[in-house]
């Protein structure tokens, strides 16, 4: 938030400087956008599209569609969407939208009072180095304005589908960077505490004794993002390139890509135990999840993982990829209400492994329903004709009644078999009902021929939330109060755990080179939220995800053991890197960044890291001003500021008292103040805080002295915090005017 105020001040001064220019381009666009668009809109008296055509500037973000020239913009607006003058919305959040506007109408579009700001869409960059730069990790690696941090001395733990131990990004001249590798899929010499799978040490890997393979490629990719060192290709370096790596291949079969809750806990415990033995801090990447569960951090998995988190031992989890699916529906209710929702059923057998009986033609639709406070009297499962919307069948029950595979008939034929279980969950005290509607493998029973309604009569006031499938978009006639579906609370588990850091995804690439030529990502705009990125809040009301990071499209290490022929358009020309998207890909950007933070301060707690993220995440035109929210969390990852804050708090008494080598003058000061240190020592950063500890100004630096303007400071006493190559120093500054 402090940084936001500083940025706000900068933006305000920019607006003031351009206020004399009446052009909406000058007043509503950033400098880069204004530079490009000003000569176009000032091409007075002529068709601006002709200008574009004449100057042959038909390249992104300009495009021709049906002989009309459009420009693609990211806009901030207030209230409803402004008039688009024949353009269209590409994607939008509540106050930010990516739009395509006819160039001839650009002036009119920008002149609308509801358009607050506009930026040209940017094209994406071609490799991992762009997402690394985007989050500020390069500055941290090279020590620009902050101590140089690369993850050295920190364990990056990856619990996933395995790792390609032969990929050059996971080794140095001294051999493998992987200190331990536990392969749960293949039995051999298992870890001492865990009697399954095979454990390999660094020595085993160096001697070529590891038989482990990552057939899926997912684990290799996330490990590359978090900790790859770019030995295969320097620009593909990951976020913590000098961290040590511990990998748990958490699948029980080589070709699987799903993980068992109990194994996840064991895998994380194993990584932390190894880190403890080595005397190193550790961060674990969990690019996995499921949308089932209480969504309040009280599942046993989430409790267990939260309990594994300790000072210097942190876990990062993917928010989930359900952001486009309005599978959640919820409402608060009063006593004596009749409420319900219409559902277009989806076959959950395709979504959840081992969820359905292994029989041909099986179709099961399901609803996971949670009640907080209040009680429910009766529950009804109703089938409606999808053409006439008349009810054709109904099953009613008192809540708590066990219903097991009961036939529901319509017009003398079975239209589904219904099971309902309701329990009181002792971890959170809430009632939990689970509904299954199945065809039991009978292909003549077509569940999705019907619209289904789940309806409830209420006894006392409370809140219902259900995860049930896709809601029916039409306004159907109803004899009850309808609550409709939305994408809220699509955050998965274990991301909703109380002590895990949950990560959403935004776009940082839409164009890349591949083995099958140049590819593009369907007009994705730079910096916007990934549409798939799951949203919060958690059911107990916490903001989720905590933050967002680059997750679409990310190029990182490709496993040589995975099938590549079917994904040539995603494989880099050299075959060593692979481009995919998902909150899975965003998560290791955060895991790597937390490794940098742990290098600066090895005992950082979950609460400290969360506080830094909450205060120092990035806000921009794409996130909008209204942060935190349940799409972006507290904003975009900022490795530079996170690392800087971790460094600034990593002080000891010696640092605090060792002030003799720092000079600050004049003091008292008026309009300028200079800080200097002895030759040979570098000042990385100078921060000025008020007596309440609020950051007033900050300056990055690369020499042995730094001068700051104190003109804007009022009379009073301030703290000056100087980060140098010799340590952190604190001085008192007095301003007198």
């Amino acid at each position: 938030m402090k940084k936001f105020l500083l940025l706000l001040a900068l933006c305000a001064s920019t607006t003031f400087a351009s206020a004399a220019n009446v052009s909406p381009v000058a007043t509503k666009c950033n400098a880069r956008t204004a530079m490009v668009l000003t000569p176009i809109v000032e091409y007075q008296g002529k068709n601006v599209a002709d200008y574009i055509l004449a100057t042959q500037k038909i390249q992104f973000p300009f495009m021709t569609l049906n002989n009309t020239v459009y420009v693609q913009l990211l806009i901030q607006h207030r209230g409803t969407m402004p008039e688009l003058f024949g353009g269209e919305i590409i994607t939008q959040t509540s106050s930010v939208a990516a739009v395509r506007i006819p160039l001839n109408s650009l002036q009119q579009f920008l002149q609308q009072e509801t358009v607050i700001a506009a930026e040209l869409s940017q094209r994406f960059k071609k490799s991992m180095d762009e997402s690394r730069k985007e989050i500020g990790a390069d500055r941290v690696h090279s020590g620009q304005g902050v101590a140089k941090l690369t993850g050295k001395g920190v364990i990056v733990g990856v619990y996933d589908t395995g790792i390609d131990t032969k990929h050059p990004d996971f080794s140095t001249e001294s051999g493998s960077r992987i200190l331990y590798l536990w392969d749960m899929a293949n039995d051999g010499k298992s870890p001492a505490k865990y009697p399954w799978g095979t454990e390999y040490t660094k020595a085993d890997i160096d001697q070529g004794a590891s038989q482990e393979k990552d057939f899926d490629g997912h684990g290799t990719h996330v490990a590359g993002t978090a900790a790859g060192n770019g030995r295969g290709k320097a620009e593909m370096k990951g976020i913590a390139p000098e961290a040590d790596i511990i990998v748990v291949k958490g699948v029980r079969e080589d070709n699987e890509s799903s993980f068992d809750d109990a194994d996840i806990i064991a895998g994380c415990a194993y990584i932390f135990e190894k880190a403890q033995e080595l005397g190193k801090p550790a961060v674990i990447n969990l690019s996995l999840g499921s949308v089932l569960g209480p969504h309040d951090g009280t599942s046993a998995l989430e409790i267990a993982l939260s309990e594994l988190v300790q000072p210097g031992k942190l876990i990062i989890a993917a928010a989930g990829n359900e952001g486009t699916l309005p599978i959640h529906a919820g409402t608060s209710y009063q006593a004596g209400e009749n409420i319900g929702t219409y559902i277009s059923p989806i076959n959950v057998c395709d979504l959840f492994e081992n969820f359905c009986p292994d029989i041909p033609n099986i179709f099961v639709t399901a609803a996971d329903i949670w009640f907080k406070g209040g009680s429910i009297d009766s529950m009804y499962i109703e089938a409606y004709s999808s053409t006439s919307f008349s009810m054709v069948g109904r099953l009613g029950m008192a809540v708590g009644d066990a219903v097991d595979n009961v036939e529901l008939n319509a017009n003398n034929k079975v239209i589904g078999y219904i099971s309902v279980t309701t329990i009181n969950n002792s971890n959170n005290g809430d009632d939990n009902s689970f509904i299954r509607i199945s065809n039991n493998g009978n292909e003549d029973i077509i569940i999705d021929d019907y619209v289904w309604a789940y309806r409830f009569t209420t006894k006392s006031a409370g809140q219902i939330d259900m995860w049930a499938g896709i809601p029916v978009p039409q306004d159907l006639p109803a004899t009850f109060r309808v609550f409709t579906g939305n994408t809220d609370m699509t955050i998965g588990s274990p991301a909703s755990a109380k002590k895990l850091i949950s990560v959403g995804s935004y776009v940082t690439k839409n164009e890349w080179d591949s083995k099958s030529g140049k590819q593009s990502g369907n007009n994705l705009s730079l910096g916007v939220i990934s549409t798939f990125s799951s949203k919060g809040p958690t059911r107990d009301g916490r903001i989720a995800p905590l933050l967002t990071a680059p997750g679409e499209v990310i190029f990182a290490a490709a496993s040589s053991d995975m099938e590549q022929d079917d994904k040539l358009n995603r494989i880099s020309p050299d075959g060593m890197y692979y481009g995919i998207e998902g909150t899975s890909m965003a998560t290791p950007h955060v895991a790597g960044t937390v490794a940098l933070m742990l290098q600066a301060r090895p005992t950082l707690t979950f609460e400290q890291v969360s506080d830094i993220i909450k205060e120092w995440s990035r806000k921009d035109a794409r996130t909008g001003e209204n942060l935190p929210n349940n799409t972006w969390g507290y904003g975009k990852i900022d490795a530079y500021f996170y690392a800087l804050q971790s460094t600034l708090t990593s002080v000891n008494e010696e640092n605090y008292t060792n002030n003799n080598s720092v000079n600050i003058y004049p003091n008292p000061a008026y309009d300028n103040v200079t800080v200097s240190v002895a030759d040979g020592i570098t000042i990385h950063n100078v921060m000025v805080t008020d007596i309440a500890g609020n950051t007033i100004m900050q300056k990055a630096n690369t020499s042995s002295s730094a001068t700051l303007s104190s003109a804007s400071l009022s009379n009073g006493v301030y703290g000056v915090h100087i980060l140098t190559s010799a340590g952190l120093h604190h001085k008192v500054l007095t301003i007198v005017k």
Partner: protein
Amino acid sequence: MNCSSSSVLEQKSTRALRETLAQQTAEDVSHTVLVTMQGFGDEQKKEVSLCGVSIIVATPSVVTMIGTREELECVAKKPFVKSLELSQNKKTQ
């Protein structure tokens, strides 16, 4: 060891485990479960171990274990056991 009553197990099982146990009639089939406790120390570990389950890993209030229905019934009857959840799948994201 008297572990015959199944009602406590049903009461303390979350939905997926209850459904699995209802469908699974064979008594000797083992299930991997996550058991939430009101604290898990040496004393609790000793008591749970006597039920015959195999403990995989424990945090201060969650223990993952493998056991048959009879063994889990025995665990569920311990007063410090809050709930039993079936270990379920998570997928890559």
